[in-house]
């Protein structure tokens, strides 16, 4: 399949009179090779395969790179956190399978996003920042297991909200949107697991889902991660009034997005 040819056919020149139709053309073009996204990222993208894209949508590409670098920053944080935790020996042997799997996923996300940014969007992936997981000496996640679990929950719940908040910013690119959604749900699975694990160990009473915007027994500094999760009105419909289901359960049924600035505000606590 000749993707370049396909793209040339489907994506009109930026300067052409068809410019006004570009939105649809671009969506269609991305859609055509949407099924290939996984293979593309896996197998070192043939150089130039997608170089036609910046030509048809430079501004959008820059914006996509920005969003994906934001996501990559969070994935760097998560990967480094779990890798350091595993190396430190703080994790209970009984929970090793869980955190090895989460670490593997975060590393895969780092590699995937790096690949897409550099070889699909022809951008520059952000380097891994320096992290301070003690947040200035306030936490000891690598010597105290409950703290390790608490920050793990905080990072996963933040990740879910962060990806959700960017969905609208990547929706013109079906490949990137679908990939982002497919990472988003993995982060949510992690979050559910870690939340329930903490409760099983008697460290909290949180469930796999977030109730009324509560941060449970997490440190007060994490409240920003949960504020807004108490929302029960969606698309103008107050679901408590609609159904008579209690507000706690309704709040659990919908996760809320966070903006990039809100997420960076949270993440900045852990930047060295």
């Amino acid at each position, binding site marked *: 399949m000749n993707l370049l040819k396909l793209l040339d056919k489907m994506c009109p020149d930026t300067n052409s009179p068809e410019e006004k139709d570009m939105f649809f053309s671009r969506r269609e073009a991305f859609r055509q090779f949407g099924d290939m996204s996984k293979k593309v990222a896996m197998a070192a993208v043939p150089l130039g395969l997608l170089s036609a894209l910046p030509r048809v949508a430079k501004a959008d590409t820059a914006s996509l790179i920005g969003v994906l670098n934001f996501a990559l920053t969070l994935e760097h944080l998560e990967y480094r956190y779990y890798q350091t935790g595993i190396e430190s020996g703080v994790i209970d042997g009984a929970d090793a399978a869980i955190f090895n799997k989460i670490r593997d996923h975060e590393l895969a996300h780092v590699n995937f996003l790096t690949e897409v940014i550099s070889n699909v969007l022809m951008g520059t992936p952000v380097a891994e920042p320096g992290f301070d997981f003690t947040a200035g000496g306030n936490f000891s996640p690598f010597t105290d297991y409950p703290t390790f679990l608490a920050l793990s929950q905080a990072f996963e719940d933040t990740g879910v909200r962060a990806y959700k908040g960017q969905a609208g910013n990547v929706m013109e690119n079906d490949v990137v*949107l679908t990939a982002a959604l497919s*990472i988003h749900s*993995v982060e949510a699975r992690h979050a*559910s697991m870690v939340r329930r694990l903490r409760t099983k160990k008697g460290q909290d009473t949180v469930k*796999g*889902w977030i109730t009324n915007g509560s941060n449970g027994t997490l440190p007060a500094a994490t409240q920003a991660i949960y504020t807004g999760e108490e929302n029960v009105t969606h698309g103008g419909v107050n679901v408590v009034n609609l*159904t008579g289901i209690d507000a706690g359960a309704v709040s659990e049924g*919908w996760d809320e997005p966070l903006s990039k600035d809100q997420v960076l505000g949270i993440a900045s606590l852990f930047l060295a």
Partner: protein
Amino acid sequence: MKNELIKPQGLVKNANRRQFLKTGSLSVAAAGLFLVGCNDDDDMMPPMDGGVKLGSGDIGILNYAYALEQLEAAFYAAVLTGSYFANASAEEKTIMGDLEKHERAHREFFKAALGDAAIADLEVNFSAIDFSNRTSVLMAAKTFEDLGVAAYNGAGQFIENVDYLVIAGKIVSVEARHAAAIRDLINPGSADFAGDDLIDANGLERTLNFTQVLTAASAYVTTPIDFSQLPS
């Protein structure tokens, strides 16, 4: 998951045969359940007797979500009346009770949001599930939750209105939280909550398209669902 694609002659009769054969996406699952899928918006497929038509564009996708939420809500409602639930541990009672509320809330939300465009109530058939048996219930819950996540992840790219996309995003992560919890109940402490059967080497969860999802759902939904106008 049913993989066999069978062409039911009765349904083809009045359809635009050329378009139909071109896309070749008619699926028939067990027990006389019909699922119809064509790529063209202007196909000649008449509404099926007793069936529902999801419609086109974002409305069609919202109805698609509504159909899945109807299925999930009906399932958990049945779970709560069964003897597995009556004898379940406190933790599992809490989880099943929560999931019933969440899915009922999702269902009612979509129904209200769709208004006049909402499809009718779907008929379900859970005879394959033993609601007195823990394993049977949990395996079915796993199927429904994993299916829901893959369905939303696969449909996202077809949503045009950003508000709808965000609402779908708000729901899909909760479905993923459910799925992880159910999987952990089945295989506690393992990596199955985010298992390799769903998540690939890039750390991406699987997506399923409309045909795959509705074919899987048709094992439990007896109302014929016409999704021929959904975007592609």
